[in-house]
């Protein structure tokens, strides 16, 4: 089961990477702000999954400098996906300045990773050893200005709010008024549904930890739960990579 979780996640990472590459290679996508935002979100998710796998398999001990670097990126996932949907429906003439407000949590994340980034390699290795031994160290360690579990709480709370905005944007769309092709609308609905499923599974696991804090290590390594998250990630990334990409024409 454990191997299956890892295998599915790796497959998901591969699809995500392919999706990003295709969007970068294709000029039509490369110039599209919405697709750029989607690339950022995809990379952040991919990095998140990759680091989680490194921890789960213990390999993070060999590359302690990779750990904790993704925290700022994780804050970009939800706003990027929201803006992707919004700009796909209402392509902007120019990017408004206020869009950078969405990156405020990113800045917060950057500041908070500094203590670990400046820690000595001995300390980093010791922390990685503790982390592999007890995965809940990930939200219990002292390398940060705020308690690390707040990152999970803030990140997922923001993700929930952005997801609601994403759905609201879709609901508010008046197709006959906007003239958006039905295919695009269907694609965005599917995309948002898959992302919702992926997010809900993650939040479900977090809820499980919140109400059973003692067993956080067990939950974070429980293959019976992780398998669903892995599956959802695989479907999500595969859909993003293959589905719309193959059908979409501009």
């Amino acid at each position, binding site marked *: 089961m454990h191997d299956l979780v890892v295998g599915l996640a790796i497959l998901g990472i591969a699809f995500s990477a392919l999706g990003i590459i295709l969007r970068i290679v294709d000029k039509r996508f490369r110039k599209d702000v919405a697709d750029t935002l989607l690339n950022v979100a995809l990379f952040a998710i991919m990095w998140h999954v990759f680091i989680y796998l490194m921890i789960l398999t213990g390999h993070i001990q060999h590359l302690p400098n990779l750990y904790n670097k993704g925290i700022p990126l994780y804050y970009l996932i939800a706003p990027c996906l929201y803006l992707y949907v919004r700009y796909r429906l209402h392509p902007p003439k120019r990017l408004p300045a206020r869009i950078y407000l969405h990156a405020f949590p990113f800045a917060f994340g950057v500041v908070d990773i500094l203590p670990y980034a400046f820690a000595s390699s001995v300390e980093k290795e010791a922390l990685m050893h503790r982390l592999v031994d007890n995965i809940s160290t990930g939200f219990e360690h002292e390398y940060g200005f705020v308690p690390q579990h707040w990152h999970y709480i803030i990140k997922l709370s923001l993700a929930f709010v952005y997801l609601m905005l994403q759905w609201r944007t879709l609901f508010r769309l008046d197709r006959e*008024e906007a003239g958006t092709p039905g295919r695009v609308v269907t694609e965005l609905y599917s995309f948002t549904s898959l992302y919702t499923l992926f997010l809900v599974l993650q939040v479900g696991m977090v809820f499980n930890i919140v109400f059973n804090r003692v067993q956080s290590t067990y939950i974070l390594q429980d293959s019976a739960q992780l398998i669903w998250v892995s599956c959802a990630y695989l479907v999500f990334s595969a859909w993003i990579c293959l589905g719309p990409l193959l059908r979409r024409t501009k």
Partner: protein
Amino acid sequence: MINTKPIPVSRLQPIRLLPIVVLMWGGCFQLRAESYHFSQIVSGVDRHHAMISKATKDPFGMIWMLSGSTIFRYDGVNVTPFSRLYGDALPFYEVDQLHADPWGHLWLNTRNGIAIFDLHTWKFVSHGHRLAEFVGQQLIACFKSSDGFFVADKRGMAWSIAARDVQLLFRFDPSNVDQRRPVGRMLVADAEYVWFAFDDWLHRCDRHGQHKTQVRFPPGMFSRIEDLLPVSDGVLVRVYSQGYYACTGETFTYLPRSVFRTNDFTNWNHWSFEEEDKIIAFHEDRYLEFSRDTAFRLLATGSHQLDHHILYKRLNGWQREQDEWLLCTDQGLYSVFPTRIEFDFYDSGSARGMIKQQGTYYFGGYGYLDRMGHGQVLERYTAMPENNYYAFLALSRDTACIVLEGDFLAYLINGRVVPARIDVSPATPEKFTGMAYCVARQSADTLLVGTYNGIWKYALSTGAVSPLACANSGFFSRGMRVQSIRYHAGELSFTTDQGYFTWQASRFRKVYPTSEANLNTYAHAVHGNSVYLATKGQGLVVLDKLGHLTSAIGVEGGLASDIVYQLAWVGDALYLGTHDGLSVLKGDRIYNFFHTDGLPFEEFNHQASYYDETADRLFMGGVGGYIGFRPSAVFARAGDPLGGPRLSGFRIGMKSNRYVDTYARSQLRDTIQLPKDAVWISLGFAQPENHRQGYRMFFRIAPLMDAYQEMPASSQINLSGMSAGDYRLSVKIQAASSGDEEAVRTWLIHKPPVFTETLAFYLLILIAVGGITSYILYERARKAKGEDRLRRRISRDLHDEVGGLLTGISMQTDLLRIKTDYVHSPAVDSIGTYSREATQMMDDIIWAVDSRNNVQGSLADRMKLLATQLLEPLEVVITFDVDQREDRKIPQLVRQNLYLIFKEAIHNICKHAHAKTVHIRLHHTGRRLELTIWDDGVAEAQVTQAERRKGYGQRNMQLRATQIRATFTSGRTETGYEVSVVVPLHRARFWNWFRD
């Protein structure tokens, strides 16, 4: 349960025994270290059944006992019937023999023949097992050695059972069976031969079953045999009415020994066993060692109390298990085992200080002094008076000062006690007490004596006694019971019942504890840069040279007790006499020694320690006397090999009052699966060898505990309210005498989640919450979209239907007027004018209603259009200042009302202001929308008109501003008239996202 009295042993040769016996008879007693110790393992299988008929120990350290034909297991904590452990119905009702082989099988001789229980699989041996052929046979005898297991069965076959194979050694005639069953052993083996006494014949066979001989017992001997003891060149036969015979395999030789004062060799008077190259015998109250051969030479003698404590309780059986013997009696089960360290014991009674003077040791205490000279014989020194001899201080080679609890001081001069002159000045304001406990030398003529009331100076030359006081601190030790004093390089340090203090350069200081709390501190010693305190409650406290606490080592840190009465540094090791044994600190390791290690007592006394450097012997006194030993000898002792921790019982409480109780099966598993509805579990752990105090047990449950805790006395761990997940229960066994040697075993306890703890449950909750939120969003979006569509439809209809009609009327009137036969009519003009105005108004309404115009530029464009249409015909110069940094849509209501306010203002200018210039400013900052209309109209006219219009235009504009929560101002300025509207756009913005 544990007897702390020693089994004293003398190793002197018999020829030297006589003077010692004479000395002892005369009140002199020198007792050396004992070789064997004993302790009671259990007093019975329960309160009412004390008789144990057989006992054996399995390879896991569990002791199996036979009592009343029923088998019980003792795990070091609890005695549990086998029927309960097994769980199912037992295949027998009555058992008369019980043996555990070295490979984890229990051999039970039952009424229905042999039953063999496999402790590894927790099943009875049946078909297919290599031992299956023994099942159902009748067992005659068994013998277990360290490397083999031998069985004689009623088929007339003697077997050697090895780990993997079974070998038939020899056959014998089982037909004429003598039913006699002695308590001792009829089947024995050593490295070479197996001996078996049966039916008047003594059989001998080599271990490989190749050479077999048999010899008939002398007439009447077999019916009186009590035990066989294998020796190097034959076997010793103990006959209860005569003593020992030696047999080499051919003949029997009687071995009468005068050391046996009686010929009563029955089990309640005599017990013996073989040990390496000796035969150890306990005969009446005498301890005897013989050579282990047929010569049976006496090697050493001593005395013991085994007869009184064990043999008189009627021996029912004995069984050798590793290095100990299990002795089954009518009053419980006992263990006899060798002591590991030879502490010399000096029975001087409750001990205090001691000293060596001119080669003779003097032992203090209450009553007479005891002394021991070169003859190493302790004697009561009755020539000197009785007193409370508390402590000693050597003043010279032949003189020592004695601290007396009551009479203050005396001298020991050339072995004689001489009262000290004591001259307490009547003028001293302090209360003098003769209750003295310690002494130190301050100068050549001055002693410092610690008493029940502080420290007093004593002048050796004059006997003058005065309180130790200084100008700064006065009599600083007033009211303290001073228990140890050290004076060095002008610094006085002392301990009292309140703590540890120093006095230097007239400065008195309480060093420890630093708080107001008192800590009874018995002794202190300075070593290196540290001060070591023996305390009552905190164990050993270590301070640095500044008096800061470095560490406090108590029971949790590995010390034998939290109460330390005395301490002595010898070399690099600190020896501590505690309330519960001897602890030794060497480096960062702590060694503990208890009565099972050879200590004759475990409770030590204050001031009772003395190191004889010339003889390299450390003396430490306690409640039972003194022990003396070579300090380094304690480190040479090898610890017991530690067995792994073992689960002995497992109970689960579940919902609906269901309860599962498994005593033994669970111990075989490393992973324990709990049922989903388990609400409580209790785990019991075996403590094999508990009676020998060889180890301490700790446990940790991850993730509930970060560190190990000591196992409770009940050896039981209870867990309740467990949430779903994995719990790793680690049990650690640590050797009592070393922090290094330990064995750890970890069990994984898995509790599956109930539905409310599963991911599915939380997903359902999230889906429900998300669904409700999405539904609300969807409904609001649907409503907003419907409203927008309605607005668009209305504006479209108005534009297409009504607008077309009005335009038609207007065009018709225009056509009518340009006709040649048109007769001017004011009514027609009015129709034309009104229809155009109506068209204009309706156009405004259509613009205002249509939500598509909510984009920023639409409002500005509309304002420009209106102003241009109305003001340009009046030749008014219009300037626009439009700044839209935000591209966000303007709310419908705001746009509509703002436009109407603007329109009203422009109309007012057209009608009443006579203005030459109009300035219009529209700024959208993102946070607010600002509209300002300024004109330079005529003041008088405006005033007049303004007053007239106050009831209409102004009021309408104010009302519209209020509707959109805007700030509205209007009035004259120095250069004209100004109308200003400021609309805040970000109030409750987040909420409005959802509300709109």
